[in-house]
């Protein structure tokens, strides 16, 4: 699968020098990339640094992105390669890093983006509970999108409803979740 249509349009904008489109991509994929990088480096600071470098590289190299993979796959590859380079350059400087590389990861540990790290575990549970309690139509559309990565068109076919309804339901889910998070003061913890 190549880049999604939406990302393709944003990519075209970035290639044309649209900085807002680039910022949108950063805002969209930063949390996910940070989770990946923290998982890889086991260091939030190092992950932050590599994340910055990754997006700088994305901005610089976007013209070379051939859209044969999804945009995030490409971003992920850049990020992981930068992380590997970091490890390689510090290989002899820090034995702890080599331990990280060598250790086996049987437990499939969970790593979180800093934004999620800042949330108290209790808040996180509340959010998930809130999502569980969304009405079935809203929750299903949202789950198909967020967890299954389905397009609106696919969701419309699955749920046998117009695309506009899918769009509204997914937005409604996000809006309700944001409102809940604001009510609970979760983003300001």
């Amino acid at each position, binding site marked *: *699968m*190549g880049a*999604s*249509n*939406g*990302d393709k*349009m*944003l990519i075209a*904008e970035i290639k044309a020098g649209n900085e*807002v*489109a680039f*910022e*949108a991509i950063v*805002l*969209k*994929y*930063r*949390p*996910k990339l940070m*989770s*990946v990088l923290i*998982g890889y480096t086991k260091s939030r600071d190092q992950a932050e640094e590599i994340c910055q470098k990754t997006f700088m590289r994305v901005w610089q190299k976007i013209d070379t992105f051939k859209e044969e*993979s999804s945009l*995030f*796959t490409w971003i992920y590859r850049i990020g*992981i390669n930068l992380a590997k380079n970091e490890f390689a350059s510090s290989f002899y400087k820090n034995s702890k890093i080599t331990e990280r590389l060598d250790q*086996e*990861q*049987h437990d*499939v*540990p*969970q*790593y*979180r*983006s800093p*934004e*999620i790290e800042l949330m108290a575990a209790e808040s*996180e549970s509340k*959010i*998930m509970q809130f*999502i*569980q309690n969304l009405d079935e139509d809203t929750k299903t559309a949202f*789950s*198909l*999108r*967020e*967890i*299954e*990565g389905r*397009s*609106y068109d696919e969701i419309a076919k*699955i749920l046998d409803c117009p695309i506009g309804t899918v769009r509204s339901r*997914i*937005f409604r889910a*996000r*809006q309700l*979740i*944001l409102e809940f*998070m604001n009510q609970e003061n979760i*983003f300001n913890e």
Partner: protein
Amino acid sequence: MNKNLEKLSSLYDGELSHHEMQEILKEMDSDKNLRNTFHRFGVISELVQKHSDQQNSKTISLRNYYRKINPVIINMATAAATVFLTLIVLYQFDEDRFQVDRETSLQLSSAISSDQAKLQLLNADQNIMEHMIQIMQSNQSNISQQVAKNWIPVGFSVDPKNPNQYSNGRNNLFFHLENKQLGIKQVKYFKANNNWIYLIPLKDGRLLTAYGDIPPSIADQMIQSIYQRN
């Protein structure tokens, strides 16, 4: 304002027309709140995808969906992208390496619904993730990898056009052999949308990856056969 937020939500999902995208990008340029909200969509998305408990409700709500679809791998690239976006660790065996038998740990089907089943996202397990993306994006589909005949599930035969693809006319299965095991000591399997990926450490130190729209009920027998004869 709500209209803008709805557009923002659709932008996040990549579902806007070019014209709508241009409009909302202009709005974002001048409205920090919109940019913050867009970022929060990302945080919510990450949180939801990270939260393993979410899978329980998803399984229920998607049950009808899975009944409707006829899973067939269309191409490797699609599968790879699917893996990246939605790969979910459904279960990993906790039994000792290779100490598996018919009665105990290889009951994949029942494992899904067992209390032991742990629903975990794969994002953190980068080695495995990279491995799967790599093999599914690679151009090795036409290179035969000397898959042992007894590994092939009953009723499946090789596709004449692709020596690594096996089919029973309804389901497709691909094999990939790796010389390293990526720290995997037990069978792990993953579900990525319509497809299943089984990582099977072999006694000789290699890792067999089997992937396709083969449900655990079929894979169970295949894996048992591999361990009995491996």
